[in-house]
């Protein structure tokens, strides 16, 4: 009797001890991989970044580190109960290694637009008010004012301090709402974690920099998570009953579709989380509160929020359904009152693209496919990778259906509804990128259903195939996400060039750049007259025609010819690598321009004001002709 009761206890203790040892070993492997990966990135050579982007500068150790993290995470799916510590530490390590790789490897924060957004926040801090007629983004100032306040409260003087690690922090913030969405839609603990991993390794669109769309995407995910967790009705409402009646009048072949979507299989969706009426009221207030922050920070995200909630309501998965009407009316109110300066001048921009699906696709895909052979290859990788993700998601939907005749309507809505954005306009050619990003949470969960359609322990065969597919897809992902680093990464010399410009140019001066370059407009945003780039009117018949585009200004006109802009031209427009030198020579040959600063990152030329300035002596590399000293900011520290 004693033996019979003792033996199982001893076996259980052994199993528990073994499990604990394996758990610690897995955690140790992940942490070791993280440390090795970070050290490998920090010690890499930034100059090795080439036409294929960051992947050319990444060391082998980095790939090994990422491989270890992926392998441990996928193997941990075979645990019977959720290994929370392993999954959490593993996913955080994956985010740091994948989405923080550029921040760790490069000497300065990347991407000119991120610096520009810091400039918007800085402008609010300096002026104390918005300038809605200066730029449309000032009509949605929520993110910029929030960033400005956070900067001052944290004791910094410039928002550029956030730029370097903003992508890592933002992507880490995606994890909780993504997990909550996964738990609300799919059963078991594995599917949500797989969804999060797929999201982290599929988010190639590069929208996670210091920007309003990133923060509002986090808020959007949270609203969707709350709606699906606490407001996902399992009883059909009036709208869905009416639609069901409409479905019953469909042709016989399609009738099953209507019944399936509107009424059928609700019992197989995970149960709604238990709530009290008071809690539901509080959560409704929270949704409205968050949506107010979204609508005052970004143009596109509130539309997507309303669309998702409306689709869930129409399909009978959201109760109370008028939430989307409330948020929609509030969004229109903001556009009407808060963004008057924008819509009064840009009605064509707002409504002009509506319904033009062909032109949206063309501006999002066709118009972007141009440039050097390497750049075209990068673009093809991107399109291929996006189609690969969507294709796997489609297969996941089919496998989910075949595995138990189940269809998760909320999952299909989260994955498919964002495609509607294509009909809403091209959004400056970025529409398709946004469509992919917004559809990725749902697509990632569908891919998790492809890997594991039922909530059970995956076989070793499935685990090995998943790891192999992830290993093969990862280099393609790296090319897709960091493929523009050749002209989007910023060096210390680039920053030095810009700081020199801001020290020399008086307020009111006109600033012209060769192309999109470096740390763009990160300070004194509204004090200068930014006359665009010379590439805006590309192509030109000759360099002289290009030079003729530079407008004179009595306050001074400055032309910045930087290496990032030259590389941008080479990769995107197929220009000569010598174009910068040619433009500079043409400007100096007119005798109207003076070379006022030069370093390894480029040159600054000033348009002479009458009376003409004496001919300058040509300075050597890195020599400031203007008598001033320049302090270089690393971007990590306080910038004064």
């Amino acid at each position: 009797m004693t033996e019979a009761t003792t033996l199982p206890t001893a076996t259980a203790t052994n199993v528990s001890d073994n499990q604990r040892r394996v758990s610690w070993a897995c955690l140790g492997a992940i942490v070791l991989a993280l440390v090795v990966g970070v050290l490998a990135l920090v010690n890499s050579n930034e100059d090795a970044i080439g036409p294929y982007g960051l992947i050319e500068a990444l060391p082998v150790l980095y790939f090994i580190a990422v491989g270890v993290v992926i392998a441990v995470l996928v193997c941990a799916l075979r645990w019977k109960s959720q290994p929370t510590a392993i999954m959490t530490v593993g996913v955080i390590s994956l985010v740091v290694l994948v989405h923080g790789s550029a921040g760790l490897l490069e000497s300065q924060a990347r991407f000119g637009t991120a610096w520009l957004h810091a400039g918007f926040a800085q402008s609010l801090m300096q002026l104390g008010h918005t300038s809605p007629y200066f730029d449309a983004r000032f009509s949605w100032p929520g993110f910029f004012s929030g960033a400005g306040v956070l900067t001052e409260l944290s004791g910094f003087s410039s928002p550029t301090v956030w730029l370097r690690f903003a992508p890592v922090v933002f992507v880490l913030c995606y994890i909780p709402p993504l997990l909550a969405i996964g738990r609300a839609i799919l059963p078991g603990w594995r599917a949500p974690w797989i969804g999060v991993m797929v999201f982290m390794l599929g988010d190639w669109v590069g929208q996670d920099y210091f920007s309003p769309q990133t923060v509002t995407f986090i808020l959007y995910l949270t609203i969707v998570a709350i709606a699906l967790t606490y407001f996902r009705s399992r009883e059909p409402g009036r709208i869905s009953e009416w639609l069901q009646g409409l479905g019953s009048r469909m042709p016989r072949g399609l009738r099953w579709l209507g019944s399936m979507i509107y009424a059928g299989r609700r019992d197989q969706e995970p149960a709604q989380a238990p709530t009290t009426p008071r809690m539901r009221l509080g959560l409704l207030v929270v949704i409205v509160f968050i949506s107010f922050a979204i609508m005052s920070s970004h143009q596109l995200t509130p539309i997507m929020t309303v669309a998702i909630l409306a689709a869930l309501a129409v399909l009978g998965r959201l109760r109370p359904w008028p939430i989307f009407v409330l948020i929609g009316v509030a969004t229109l109110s903001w556009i009407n009152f808060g963004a008057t300066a924008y819509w009064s001048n840009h009605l064509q921009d707002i409504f002009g693209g509506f319904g033009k699906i062909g032109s949206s696709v063309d501006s999002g895909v066709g118009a972007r496919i141009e440039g050097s052979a390497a750049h075209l290859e990068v673009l093809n990788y991107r399109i291929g990778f996006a189609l690969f993700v969507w294709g796997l998601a489609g297969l996941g939907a089919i496998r989910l259906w075949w595995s138990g005749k189940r269809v998760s309507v909320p999952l299909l809505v989260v994955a498919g509804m964002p495609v509607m954005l294509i009909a809403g306009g091209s959004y400056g050619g970025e529409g398709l990128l946004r469509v992919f990003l917004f559809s990725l949470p749902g697509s990632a969960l569908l891919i998790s259903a492809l890997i594991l359609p039922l909530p059970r322990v995956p076989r070793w065969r499935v685990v090995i195939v998943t790891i192999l597919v992830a290993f093969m897809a990862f280099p393609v992902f790296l090319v897709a996400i960091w493929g523009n680093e050749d002209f989007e990464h910023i060096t210390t010399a680039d920053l030095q060039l810009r700081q020199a410009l801001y020290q020399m140019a008086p307020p009111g001066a006109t600033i012209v750049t060769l192309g999109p370059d470096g740390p763009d407009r990160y300070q004194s945003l509204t004090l200068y007259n930014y006359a665009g780039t010379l590439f805006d009117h590309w192509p030109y018949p000759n360099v002289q025609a290009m030079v003729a585009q530079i407008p004179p200004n009595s306050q001074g006109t400055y032309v910045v010819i930087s290496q990032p802009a030259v590389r941008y031209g080479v990769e995107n427009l197929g220009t000569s690598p010598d174009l910068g030198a040619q433009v500079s020579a043409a400007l100096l040959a007119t005798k109207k321009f003076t070379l006022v600063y030069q370093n390894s990152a480029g040159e600054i030329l000033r348009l002479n004001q009458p009376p003409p300035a004496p001919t300058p002596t040509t300075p050597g590399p890195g020599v400031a002709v203007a008598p001033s000293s320049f302090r270089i900011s690393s971007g990590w520290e306080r910038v004064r």
Partner: protein
Amino acid sequence: MKPWSRPQCAAALVAWSIVSIVLVWVDAPSWLRLPIVGVFSLTGFGLVVVLALRIRSVPLGFAVTIAVGVSCLILCSEVVLYTRGFSSMRTLLLQSVLVWIVAVWVARREISAWNREHHVMGRVMRRQRNSAADSAGGASS
């Protein structure tokens, strides 16, 4: 260690907000302000809302903390921006007031119990005082 009760957590958040205001007031260095004031500004209101709503799910609790905290920062900064002009200190004060309101709501039962107790204590003490005065008056007369 015994986990904190909801009113204790609410009180801690109120204390955090006061410490944040003081740190900004005295212009503390950024290495101190970033982890205390910056994090409070991003998550303080979200935490007190999660406390008030009793959200049990850990991922959703994190998500709501971040989303509501960031929304509070954005909306408060905008209210200040459009009414009095950009000011980080006013924004922090507005955020803190919101945190205090929800914290009081979270701890309302404890506050009322404390109030009741002190009210009863006060009544008893008053009665003792009065009876002492009466007896003293009676003795003198």
